């Protein structure tokens, strides 16, 4: 289209030159000046927008470079041992990422364990079961859950969810799992209220709307013909979902789940409130722990000494790389779905 437009404009200028022999030269100069101004403005605007597009890439590059630059001292001091060390001692300048990385992975795993089935359940409800007039309001309400700022989840988790889990859920878990081999270590007491399980629960509520709304969107890309054919041979709603819709949209649903996972891994404030900020890997999910983001949020402004700051920035770098990979996979999968449905 660009070249077509340019040709058109050139053509106009050429024809002007031919016919303008008869016209007064003043008008011709005026006209060509306006056209030149158009051309200059067009050139500027075009390059301005392109510069802005490139700026998006520069931001990403800047994030990565600044994190690498900031973590250089820590990388030099600890090397790869940083990833496996459980130490976290600001006094002796001895730092390791194992505890925060473990906490990040554990809380996200709990969140996905709850949010994936529930999110897909909501998506099935919204596409198949919900009465038509209610679809839009219920869908919007679920998405509102995604709009609540994470600090609100934090304060709510600290004052409402944590005491509730401590008094009503965790004692039951401890009692019920006391004799079962693996579970008894996972749910070993005492019930603190704040800890890995509470953080995972909050994260589950937070990523639920992402998984639900993306799953709903990809379920809606299934051609009605496929579903009608399945209903036509006598399938029940559940059989249609399980054997037709979900296999057809597998990649897209997985993309939505990965997107939710990316959110859960990087979530900061809600987790900071309820995780307890203890730099150790505890076998029990009820014990306090820490995550990468919570460690940074809690300690960064108080970090004295270059190595301390640098270790925290390296944690940020690790977090960014993990989420980058997860989100890139998510986008790649969702792009495949879009391409297929968009034709």
């Amino acid at each position, binding site marked *: *289209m*660009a070249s077509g*437009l340019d040709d*058109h404009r050139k053509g106009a200028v050429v024809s002007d030159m031919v016919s303008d022999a008869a016209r007064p030269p003043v008008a011709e100069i005026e006209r060509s000046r306006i056209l030149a101004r*158009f051309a200059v403005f*067009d050139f*500027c*605007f*075009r390059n301005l927008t*392109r510069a*802005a*597009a490139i*700026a*998006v*890439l520069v*931001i*990403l590059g800047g*994030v990565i470079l*600044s*994190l690498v*630059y*900031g973590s250089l001292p820590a990388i030099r001091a600890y090397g790869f041992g940083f990833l496996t060390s459980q130490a976290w001692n600001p006094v002796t300048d001895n730092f390791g990422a194992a505890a925060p990385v473990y906490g990040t992975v554990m809380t996200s795993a709990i969140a996905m364990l709850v949010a994936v089935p*529930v*999110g897909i*359940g*909501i998506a*099935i409800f919204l596409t*198949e*079961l919900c009465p038509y007039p209610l679809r839009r309001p219920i869908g*919007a309400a*679920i998405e509102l*859950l995604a*709009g*609540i*700022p*994470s*600090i609100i989840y934090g*304060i*709510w988790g*600290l*004052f*409402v969810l944590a005491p509730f889990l401590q008094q009503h859920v965790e004692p039951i878990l401890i009692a019920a799992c006391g004799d079962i081999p693996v579970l008894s270590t996972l749910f070993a007491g005492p019930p603190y209220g704040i800890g890995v399980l509470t953080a995972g629960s909050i994260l589950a509520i937070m990523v*639920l709307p992402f998984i*639900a709304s993306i799953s709903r969107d990809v379920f809606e890309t299934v051609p009605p013909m496929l579903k009608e054919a399945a209903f036509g041979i006598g399938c*029940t709603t*559940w059989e249609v979902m399980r054997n037709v819709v979900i296999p057809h949209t597998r990649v897209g649903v997985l993309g939505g789940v990965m997107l939710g996972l*990316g959110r859960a891994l*990087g979530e*900061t*404030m809600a987790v900071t409130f309820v995780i307890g900020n203890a730099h150790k890997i505890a076998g029990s999910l009820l014990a306090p722990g820490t995550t990468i983001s919570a460690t940074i*949020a809690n300690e*960064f402004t108080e970090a004295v000494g270059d190595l301390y700051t640098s270790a*925290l920035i390296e944690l*940020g770098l690790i*977090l*960014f790389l993990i*989420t*980058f990979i997860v*989100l*890139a996979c998510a986008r790649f999968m969702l792009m495949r779905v879009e391409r297929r449905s968009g034709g």
Partner: protein
Amino acid sequence: MSPYAARRRRNAIATGLCWVATAFGLGWLVLILAVLVWEGVRGLSFDVFTQMTPPPGSNGGLLNAIAGSLAMTILGVAIGAPLGMLAGTYMAEYGRYSKLTLIVRFINDILLSAPSIVVGLFIYTVFVARMGHFSGISGAVALAVLVVPVVVRTTEDMLLLVPGPLREAAAALGLPRSHMILRVGYRAAKAGIITGVLLAVARVLGETAPLLFTALNNQFWSANLDAPMASLPVVIFQFALSPYKDWRQLAWTGALLITFTVLALSITARALSRLRTSK
């Protein structure tokens, strides 16, 4: 039991669970909002909007935090939104089929859900460490980095919805491309682009993590963008984790204010975009 009855039963259980899942999701929304209103309204008074954040044990309000949040959000959106709009314009208009657009779209989608605390670290190393002190302006820049991907995404989507014949009509009049975009494209996509900006405001208004070590906090009134600046989310964070009862009350009240502002913004944005699509 006949196989048919078994299938019927399985279907009933599965669909029943989907109902339960939805009730579970909506239940949290209701529960969170109910607790917020319950705890927040008690502390709601005129003082909240007229007094500064108090030292523990005395009366006060949230004025400096509200003002700081507004200032940094407005500044952040003022920096981020034009940049995002221009980038979205390139992707939808000039470079619709270019490779650059594909890459930028991919990267932008990743930035859209990248952890905001990492953005805080980025601005810290680039600005705060260089300048040697925390400042409101670096907080605003951190928010701007979060605004850009939201606005890029919506601007591109909305410009792509503008019908091609409108562009062709403008081109047929001899308008240069830039004028076509400014006079026809933007006008047709106006509601959508405003929606994007509103969504971006809603997103950054509640952001805490990127402000923790860029703008820090300030207990006093400060209009100086070169000095640490209070913001509502950071004050909530600090006050909620404190042992003082009146600080906690203020935290709840602040949480109520910020949640309802953010939800009102996103509902407005949603209504605006529906207005556009139904036309």
